[in-house]
Structures are given as structure tokens and as C-alpha cells.
């Protein structure tokens, strides 16, 4: 769907507006680096542009850090974290990964950071997992709050859940102009509405431009060759995409919708993401 690209573009736009921003990926894929044409971003918060940090979360670091924050000393934390029983439990327990991931994202967004010497951010952009797993991550604190009933986990999970459902958090869905992605986005839109209220925005990504009129395509009737075939194909896909755009529009109702163009370049880089960030900024402002 282009979630990573849109997340980075959004981060660039926010940083330009003077917000101290961080973009955060959750599955240790290090895609931001490639888009920015730079060296790897890992678990350390790394400055990748003016006012813009990046972090790539992985389960191991996230869990270790989480344990450290729960205990008064590093020694005790290490004792627990390195214990085989604890490791077996946390790697087997469903949802732990999601819980510590969303917990870290929450921590990034706090004014008073738990991370040593870390500065607070005004804005945290998360490149979430795909729709079903992304929702699972957002729901994890609620689930664990209910599992724990009382005690420290309950207390903390409640705080994270409240943050997710408050107006301090926004959810933006990224769609592509094809039938299945639009269906998936509409389904996601319903589920997120049931969980925490309507989507805050939808981005329709990678739309072809309108290059030819119907008349021009008709006038090519009877002609052949690669350029004509490419034109007919482009126009056909353009029309199909417009139909999907209309379907998305009517499906999401009053949710603000922004369109981003398909960029005809072999690979997206910093220039293209910057270009997209300006489009997003104009449309979402």
C-alpha cells in the first residue's frame, strides 16, 4: 500500500512545520534508511533529517527495555530478562510482542521520556503492520489490561490504551486504487471505528495521472505499436482507479481523503518522498 513511504512523507512534513518528529517502524525492516539514501536505522533513535528522528523496533530490544523500566535496578532486570523461563514465556505468549511494541511507541510519545537522555517528541509517526495485525497491535493493551485485572501490568496497559483511544492519537489508513486494497481499507475503517472512533484520514496512494481523454484513445483505434498499447493500458487503468477512488470516497464518508500520485520512477528516493510530503502537507493542512 505504500505505508512506509506515506509514514516517512508525513514525518518530513511535520518536521518542516517545526514539530520535533520521529518515524517508527515496528518489524525491524529498516526501510526508512533506504528511502532516505542513508545508513541503517536501528533501535537507537537516529536523526535522519532536520527535526526528524527514526527508530526501527525489534522484539528483543523492545522487550528488554520494557523489563528494565518495570524494575528498580538494571541488575534485577537482567536477572529476569536472561532467565530461560521468562524468555520461553514471553516468546510463547500471544500478543506480548504487540504489547511491548505499542508500549515503546507510547513511551516515544511521552513528554517525560523513560529512555535515558532522550528528548521528547511532539509527533510520533508509526509505520504500522498491515490492517489485521495493525489492529491486533492497537488492541493489545486492552487485552492485557483485561488479562491482568489488577497490578502493575493492568495499570500500565490501561494508560497505553487510554492514550490510543484519546485524541492525542490519530489513525490514517493508506489505500491503493484497486478493488481488494479498497475493500480492505473499508473493512479496516469499520473496525477502527468500532474500536476507537472514525479514521482521522485516508490516503489513496499511487494514482495514475489523467493523460489521455476518451476521445484521444478512441482516435488511436486501428493503430498499433508499443506506444499505443501503453497509452490504451494507461487509460484503462486510470479509469479503473478512478472508479475505485469513488468507491473509497463514498465508503469512508466524512473522513478526509488525500490522493497521492503514482510516481513513474524506478525507485522512490528522498526527492520523491519530499515531493509527496509537500502534497500531503497541502492537502491535510
Amino acid at each position, binding site marked *: 500500500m505504500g505505508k512506509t513511504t506515506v509514514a516517512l512523507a508525513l514525518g518530513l512534513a511535520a518536521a518542516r512545520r517545526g514539530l520535533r518528529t520521529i518515524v517508527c517502524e515496528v518489524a525491524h525492516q529498516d526501510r526508512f534508511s533506504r528511502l532516505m539514501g542513508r545508513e541503517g536505522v536501528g533501535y537507537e533513535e537516529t536523526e535522519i533529517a532536520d527535526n526528524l528522528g527514526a527508530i526501527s523496533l525489534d522484539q528483543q530490544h523492545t522487550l528488554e527495555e520494557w523489563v528494565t523500566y518495570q524494575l528498580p535496578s538494571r541488575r534485577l532486570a537482567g536477572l529476569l530478562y536472561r532467565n530461560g523461563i521468562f524468555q520461553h514465556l514471553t516468546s510463547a505468549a500471544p500478543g506480548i510482542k504487540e504489547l511491548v511494541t505499542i508500549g515503546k511507541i507510547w513511551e516515544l510519545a511521552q513528554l517525560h521520556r523513560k529512555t535515558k537522555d532522550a528528548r521528547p517528541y511532539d509527533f510520533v509517526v508509526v509505520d504500522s503492520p498491515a490492517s489485521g495485525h495493525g489492529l491486533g497491535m492497537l488492541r493489545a493493551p486492552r487485552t492485557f489490561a483485561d488479562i491482568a485485572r489488577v497490578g502493575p501490568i493492568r495499570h500500565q496497559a490501561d494508560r497505553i490504551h487510554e492514550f490510543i483511544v484519546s485524541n492525542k492519537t490519530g489513525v490514517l489508513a493508506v489505500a491503493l486504487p484497486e478493488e481488494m486494497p479498497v475493500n480492505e481499507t473499508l473493512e479496516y475503517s469499520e473496525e477502527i471505528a468500532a474500536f476507537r472512533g472514525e479514521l482521522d484520514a485516508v490516503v489513496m496512494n499511487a494514482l495514475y495521472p489523467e493523460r489521455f481523454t476518451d476521445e484521444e484513445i478512441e482516435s488511436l483505434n486501428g493503430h498499433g505499436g508499443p506506444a499505443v498499447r501503453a497509452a490504451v493500458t*494507461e487509460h484503462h487503468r486510470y479509469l479503473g482507479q478512478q472508479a475505485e477512488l469513488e468507491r473509497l470516497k463514498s465508503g469512508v464518508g466524512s473522513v478526509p481523503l488525500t490522493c497521492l500520485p503514482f510516481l513513474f520512477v524506478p525507485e522512490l528516493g528522498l526527492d520523491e518522498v519530499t515531493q509527496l510530503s509537500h502534497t500531503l502537507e497541502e492537502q491535510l493542512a
Partner: protein
Amino acid sequence: MSVATLLEGKEICICAGAGGVGKTTTSAAIAVGMARRGLKVAVLTIDPARRLANSLGLPELGNEERRIELDAPGELWAMMLDAKSTFDEIVEKHAPDAGTRDAVLSNRIYKELSTAVAGSQEYMAMEKLHELHEEGGYDLLVLDTPPSRNALDFLDAPDRLSRFIDSRSLQFFLAPSRTGLKIFSRGTGLVFSVLKRVTGIDLLQDLSDFFASFGDMAQGFRERAKAVKQLLADDRTTFLLVTSPAHEAVEEAKFFRDRLEESGMPFGGVIVNRMHVEADVDDPGVPDGLDPELERKLVDNFEDFHALALRDRQNVERLTGDIGDRPLVIVPYLDDDIHDLEGIEAINDHLFATGAAAQTGAE
């Protein structure tokens, strides 16, 4: 190369790859194609997004296999994993008595965990695969997995579960509060007291009740997990990596292939979807006598598509160099969205190298 050749003698075909590369449609297409070749095939999706029904032109699918009408010598069945129902069914089936069954099903932690999508999905996918393979009577199971990184969780699931049940860990949680601890060393007692600070004593007690409610059933989970792990590594299974020709997707496919090899799971080949082939020539061949404005637009448009075609070709060449002797099947970017059986046939011209596509699509 036809996918049918890749699947000869296989009982399980697992489609994996990055998000948005057409995995679900490809899984459905493979199932249709193999049913056309006379097999009894079931396609199941473990991705919590509901695309499989979509790609088969159905309004919905459930946790039970459903027969799809197909004018073919074989049979086509499809289902979408519902983790909660699967978990409940397993408990009902394997509980030694009604008391154990009710104790598990009514346990508060069980209810929370089995309903939460995150995490339990992978375990239930494993259980479902085991059940369908053992009891379904299918010639071939086609599995549509979530995007790569989450699919890896599925591959690791049997190990994670077995390790927990095998080790002392389960014992630890079965007897956390009082006398049971005496069987552990002092070090373990210390870990217990540290853990208690993190979770609170109530959660540990609740966890203990939760694990205790399973009783001997835990061993059954462990045995099935081990069986699935063996099945995934068996010759009867093959992993097909589905990708688009975009750089990122190709890198993801390579990453996944490496992970398969590390864990000793059989990598069958690669399917490249959405290949831009329409402008993969140097000469646009613009017809004579067109309006100059239209001619300019035709050339601009051609050049854009030509650049994509070149990129796709280069990325696929890189991938081909990387996968060694494993086959690569190419499906071009088709003009229409695939959302019914008819569209799937268009894909299968390429996947199964039939008709005109045999000359152009499969190299």
C-alpha cells in the same frame, strides 16, 4: 515453468511474501489451477484481512472449508482461519472430560487470548494446518500467509510453543505461589520474586489457574506443534515466494528465502506478479500522422512505462541470479483487477503456462 510442475508430489504449498504483492490472489489461483488438474484442493488464508473470499468472488468465508463451485475434474475448497473458533474446537475435541473443557473455555485468560488476533493466530494456523492435513482428505493444501515478517511468526510458532511446554517453564507457572516452588532452585525462587514485581501476584496466580485448567492437554499441543514443524520441513511441503518486481518486495523475498534455508524449510520457487511488460522494447513505434500534441503524450507515457519495464526486468534478473536453480514464474501486470474466477483463469494462463502465455510469460 508451470506451477503444476513445481507442485508435483506436494501436499502443502505455502505462499509467502511482502504485503500487496498479490499473495492471496496467487494462492486462490494456484488452488483453482490444481483443482482443474483433478486434485482435491483446499486453500486457506491465515491473514486476518479478508481478501481470500474477495479473490474468489465470494461475499465471505468462514472457519469451515466451503466447497467452491468449479467446473473441473477436481474439487476446490476454501476457508478463512478464525483463531477463536479453531481454539474452541481444539479444546472441545481434545479435552479429556467435560470438566476440563468447561474449565478452559470459561477461564478468563483463555477468553481474552483466544479472541485477541495478535499472536494466537499463528498457533491456530498451525493447528488448522495439522488438522486439515491429517483429516481433511485433501490432495493439496494451499496456504496464504500474512506479509513476510508476520509469516515468520507462523514458521517459528511450533518451536516457541514446544519450548515453553517442554521446558521447566510450564511447571514453574503451574505451581507459582506456595509449595511447588520447593522443587526449584533458590535462583528460580529469586526469579519468581522479581517476576512478581513486574506482574503482581494476582496475575501469576491467574496464569497458574489458566495453565492448570489445560491439564494433560498441554502435551497434545506440544505433540501437534512438533508434528507441524516436521511437516513444514518435509518434502511434501513447498514454499513459494510471491513478489512484485519492485525493489523492496524483491529484497523481502530474498530475506524470506534466507530464513527458510536457515530453518531447513523447502523453498520451491518464486512467483513474480505484476510485471510491467507492456513497454519492454526500445522503440515506441508511434504511428505516423497523429496530432503532434497526442504524439508527444504517447511518447511521454511510453517512456514512463518503459522505465518501469526496465526496472522490473533488472530486479527480476537480480532475483534470478540470487535464487540459483530454483524456478521463477512471471505473471504480467494484467489490465483488469482480479476479483472472480474468470480473472483467476487469466492469471493461470501464466502460472500454469497454458495458451498464448506459454510462449511469452514463463521463461
